């Protein structure tokens, strides 16, 4: 038993186990569930019923079986390559997005550390800079898919995606500068622990949303644009360029794009929870003296999951509420409004920190 434990606690194997648990038990199931939930929730918003027909005998699970039905359908569908497409790039393009979406979870802690054991795959020093690097990889998926498909719609979608994502990456980083300044670190664990402080005695937790309200809005907007969801879904643009950059894909590769979208939706939600809503820290839990460690950990996981699900829901709700921006409006909003605002945010934050210090 001890021997087994020793093997498990080897850093490399432990990291693999954490990756498997976090991705296979948290990110992927939630992302898969969201592919259905988006349709169900949008149906509720629009006074419809939503998918409820897939069944085994009499059992439909109120539409739950559609996940299995969709998966089976994509697996058995033909994987087509359009004539004149660049085969290799065309085939690998879907996985850039998926890898980028999944890699976000590498640095997100889902519960507080117990002794030496952390509920986080790795706590790299650059921390959030890693996120920026990884989300830049996301652009490649869209651009490669767009250029290699030999389709004009896909090319347009890829061009739009590259322009939009590169522009919004600029102030995505700048919007987080405030957070870095307030908590004095780029390490995720440092930021999360910094949000466990309180103002006015034990009244208000020092969450990112209270220290950086403008930064929250800016960063959230940037991330929504980065995941290419409404109101910034001009790269997909159903009404004008059919499906944008992944128009030519079919079968499991198309599903990889879809899954990447929903996993990155979960990733965005987890990131927002971690950076602006105290991460895994349950507010005011420190008032409960000598609480058992296992209860604390379970509460932390529950709190983190709850906020993540709420943010997933909020993004879906936003998509079905807000009309799409025209593409020039998207760019105008990014460069002319949000970029100056994030600069103002940095200056104001710096001034406030200087005056208080």
């Amino acid at each position, binding site marked *: 038993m001890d021997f087994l434990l020793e093997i498990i606690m080897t850093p490399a194997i432990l990291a693999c186990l954490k990756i498997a648990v976090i991705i296979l038990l948290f990110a992927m199931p939630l992302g898969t569930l969201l592919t259905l939930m988006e349709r169900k929730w949008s149906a*509720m918003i*629009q*006074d419809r*019923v939503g998918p409820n027909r897939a069944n085994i005998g009499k059992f439909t699970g109120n539409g739950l079986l559609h996940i299995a039905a969709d998966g089976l359908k994509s697996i058995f569908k033909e994987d087509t390559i359009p004539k004149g497409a660049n085969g290799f790039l065309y085939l690998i393009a879907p996985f850039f997005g998926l890898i980028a979406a999944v890699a976000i979870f590498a640095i997100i802690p889902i519960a507080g550390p117990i002794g030496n054991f952390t509920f986080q795959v790795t706590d790299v020093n650059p921390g959030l800079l890693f996120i920026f690097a990884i989300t830049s990889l996301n652009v490649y998926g869209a651009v490669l898919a767009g250029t290699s498909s030999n389709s004009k719609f896909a090319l347009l979608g890829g061009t739009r995606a590259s322009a939009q994502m590169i522009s919004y990456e600029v102030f995505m980083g700048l919007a987080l500068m405030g957070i870095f300044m307030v908590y004095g670190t780029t390490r995720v664990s440092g930021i999360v622990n910094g949000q466990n402080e309180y103002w006015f005695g034990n009244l208000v937790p020092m969450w990112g949303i209270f220290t950086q309200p403008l930064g929250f*809005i800016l960063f959230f907007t940037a991330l929504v644009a980065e995941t290419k969801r409404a109101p910034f879904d001009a790269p997909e643009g159903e009404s004008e360029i059919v499906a944008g950059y992944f128009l030519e894909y079919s079968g499991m590769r198309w599903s990889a794009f879809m899954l990447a979208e929903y996993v990155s939706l979960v990733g965005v939600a987890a990131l927002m929870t971690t950076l602006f809503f105290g991460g895994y820290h349950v507010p005011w839990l420190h008032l409960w003296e000598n609480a058992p460690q296992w209860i604390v950990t379970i509460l932390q996981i529950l709190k983190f999951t709850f906020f993540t699900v709420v943010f997933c829901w909020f993004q879906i*709700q936003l998509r079905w*509420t807000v009309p799409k921006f025209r593409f020039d409006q998207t760019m105008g909003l990014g460069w002319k409004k949000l970029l100056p605002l994030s600069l103002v945010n940095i200056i104001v934050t710096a001034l406030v920190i200087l005056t208080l210090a």
Partner: protein
Amino acid sequence: MPKLNICKYSSGGIMELKVKRVERVDGVKEAIFLPAIFNGLRLTVKHFWRNLFGARDVVTINYPEEKRHVSPRWRGRHRLTRLENGFLSCVACYMCETVCPSKCIHIEAGEHPDLSVEKYPVVFDIDELRCVFCGLCVEACPKDAIRMDTGVVSMAYTSRQTFDFTRDLLRDSYDPKLHSNPKYEDEDLPKPVKQSEALPNSQGIPAT
């Protein structure tokens, strides 16, 4: 609310277009988008919450399980009514065949072995694919022998022959449970003791 003003544009005196011009609303409130987004979110979240618990606003009719209420006056598939003694009310007068605009009714009259029945349709076919469901046959009938109150809304079959409704199909396939109008219920009609006694076979000869 944005102010509306109606302007008239005339293009070369040929036609005049009335254009409702909506003035752009500018200002800080519009420029930062957030108030408008929150207004929209309030509406969608309201619908979401109402439908999350119990689907209160959902207007969908789950079709094969639930069916839309059909008005009693809805002209569905035809049926041939029966007399008290179980024979067809139809006297093969050809009124419906004559009035039918799509020529989908085909009747052949014949003498009935039972002397109390004067004349009856040996063949009464309706091609439901040609029928336009105008209801003129029902209005033309002097004996109230043909009706369109079966409440059968959709007829979906896989072969053309299935749409040729013969006399016995028109008479027997009528399901009283499907139609909702009590005025047309057959309940007040006396029922024959055995169905085989009441229903003539396809040759119209009563089974004894």
